[in-house]
């Protein structure tokens, strides 16, 4: 293991300083050209689109957990809110209303609220940012592990509302809050300016849209991380008291982190709602929060490129390797279940192993790595002397 690490360090030292940027540029060009070489409606294409949506989610959670060090176990709430925003404002769900803004002729003829997706995604980001602040407020005075539980509780409350929301009518009889387990479907397909309306038969436009969304969020993430705000988050993560005494306003900075993370989650949620063509209460389970958490743990907490790698890896594990390649593996050993049944066992195991063996993740962020590995592997006799 150590030899491997030395080799990696050695390799890093030999790469010229512009190497990173060149690699990023090459990867982006590759990502843009990739759809031409694969089936336009195949599984691989679908997984690529999902990967990018989950990268956006992961980057959002990473701003909260990775940068600011606030463990959010209810991230699914923002997926739900983003998706419901798409459901409310771009589907035939509220058939009594007739609102059409910036949509094609075909959608113009349909009843319901139909806003252009570009408007929807902005609304989703705003709604989620507000929700993120609301969820963040009660956690401000709390210590780390209580934050995890309160955010989890919020996630579950949102799910309960999603399931039972078909009985809540805030604005009249024909305007239920959600469609419960039946789901709001269909959701308007994307309809961007200068382009033909999207459909499920050709996933290429979806892919490029997701890619653009991801690149925007990625760029924002890098810029925010290196800004005053990002440095303040990292300072809070490393030592809250020290950060406060250096003049970092804790309340404002923490709330900004919740709002930013939530807004990214909402954008991705609005995309996924249109892409998956349904907004269904059963999509918003606690397991989803853990799935996104596993993405950033696998990639490396606080590491932007780690999130990218982690999201791609886990999406392919979850949507390709588990259901299609290794699904019947247990039966080959005479066990009577499919691998799909226990995918969360795999994530659980992954979280456990990563945290014990390589807490800094696959592509570690330098500073985070120092924090996470410090104190591990101390002699047993020293245990407990560092504040247990």
């Amino acid at each position, binding site marked *: 293991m150590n030899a491997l690490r030395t080799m990696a360090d050695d390799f890093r030292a030999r790469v010229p300083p512009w190497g990173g940027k060149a690699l990023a540029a090459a990867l982006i060009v590759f990502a843009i050209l990739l759809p031409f070489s694969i089936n336009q409606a195949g599984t691989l294409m679908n997984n690529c689109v999902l990967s990018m949506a989950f990268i956006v989610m992961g980057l959002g959670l990473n701003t909260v957990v990775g940068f600011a060090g606030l463990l959010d176990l209810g991230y699914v709430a923002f997926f739900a809110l983003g998706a419901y925003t798409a459901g409310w404002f771009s589907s035939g769900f509220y058939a009594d209303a007739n609102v059409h803004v910036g949509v094609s002729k075909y959608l113009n003829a349909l009843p319901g609220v139909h806003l252009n997706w570009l408007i929807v995604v902005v609304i989703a980001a705003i709604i989620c940012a507000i929700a993120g602040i609301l969820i963040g407020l009660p*956690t401000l*005075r709390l210590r780390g592990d209580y934050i995890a539980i309160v955010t989890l*509780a919020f996630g*579950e*409350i949102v799910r309960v509302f999603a*399931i039972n929301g078909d009985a809540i009518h805030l604005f009249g009889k024909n305007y239920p809050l959600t469609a419960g387990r039946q789901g709001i479907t269909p959701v308007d397909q994307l309809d961007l300016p200068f382009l033909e309306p999207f459909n499920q038969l050709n996933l290429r436009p979806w892919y490029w849209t997701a890619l653009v969304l991801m690149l925007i969020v990625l760029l924002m993430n890098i810029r925010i991380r290196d800004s005053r705000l990002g440095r303040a988050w990292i300072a809070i993560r490393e030592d809250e008291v020290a950060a406060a005494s250096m003049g970092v306003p804790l309340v404002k900075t923490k709330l900004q982190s919740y709002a930013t993370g939530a807004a990214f989650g909402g954008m991705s949620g609005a995309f996924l709602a249109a892409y998956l063509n349904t907004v269904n209460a059963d999509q918003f389970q606690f397991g989803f929060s853990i799935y996104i958490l596993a993405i950033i743990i696998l990639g490396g907490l606080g590491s932007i490129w780690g999130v990218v790698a982690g999201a791609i890896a886990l999406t392919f594990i979850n949507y390709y390797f588990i259901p299609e390649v290794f699904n019947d593996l247990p039966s080959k050993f005479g066990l009577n279940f499919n691998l799909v049944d226990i995918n969360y*066992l795999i994530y659980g195991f992954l979280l456990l192993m990563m945290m014990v063996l390589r807490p800094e993740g696959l592509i570690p962020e330098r500073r985070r790595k120092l924090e996470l590995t410090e104190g591990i592997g101390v002699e047993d006799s020293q245990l*407990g002397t560092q504040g*247990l």
Partner: protein
Amino acid sequence: MEANTGTSPDAPALARNTADRVRGFLNSYGLILVLLVLPVVYGIQDLKNDGNLAHLAQNLFAGLSNGTIIALIAIGYTLVYGIIELINFAHGDVFMIGSFTASQFWSGALGIGLATSTFGIAGGILASLIVAMLVCGVLNVLIEKVAYKPLRNAPKLAPLITAVGMSFILQNVGLLWIGGSPASVDDLIHAQQEVTTILGVHVQRADLLAFAVTIPLVIAMITFITTTRLGKAMRATAQDPEAARLMGINVDTTISATFFIGGLMAGAAGLVYALYETTIWYFQGFQGGLLAFTAAVMGGIGNLRGAVIGGLIIGCIQQISDNRIDPAWTPAVVFLYLILIMVFRPQGLFGEETREAG
């Protein structure tokens, strides 16, 4: 607070003083007021409709007996938090494994069914109780060794994440064991059968079982922790692990013992749950664990008596919500309470007994 428009120069100070007093009052009694909302509202409603409080009393009694299960699980959370300041996220799933072990043990290993004689059933339940408790105790110790011990000096985030991972692993073990949908358990004790009625409150056999298992266990455990040598070591480690080590206490053993006792309680809770609800499923640990954690926080985490009382209170809230509002909304009601506690009184009803609190 800032809504002061008085002209006198003393007015802002006065307003601030009042605001402080209101805040002080909320801090001391806010949680109790919040807790009283549900019973008082429905009590008034009962008095208006029926002229007596029998319905509410029935809810509260069922809540208390239901709450014993939550209290048993909450003890495990509070003990572990008290000693290593970690939310043992997997604890709820240990409770689920307890339910599975107990029901599988009496139906599989002992072959006890509805046809078995009363004496046989009683003996079988007792044997299953011991087995379930031991299995969960050992399981909890193993979890600590695998998932938490290597990370004892890592940032707090790390063991919390392994705890979530462990919880998912156990849940899937349960899923593979019994299957994805709730499985019914033989109603060995005829749980719904009524024993007696006191003041309009119906006492069922399940209630008696819950109290019969929980009360002796809790008394035994509190006695153990307050009187024995190991119990004293546990309290010392909870206060200051470093000083405890200097005094010659083996901190690792003490931590293992704490996990073991927490597991024992979870195992007992699992057995009572299986007999009480007569259905078990792999997801019961998630819900039960969160309820129990809420209970532990409500009582003041680290505080044993607080955990027990918190469990009973959460049981009542859950019961009232199930019965009067809608079972579908119960999780939201309980979580709303959790958030309110966190906002108004994060130290809980009886104050915490942890290092961070002091």
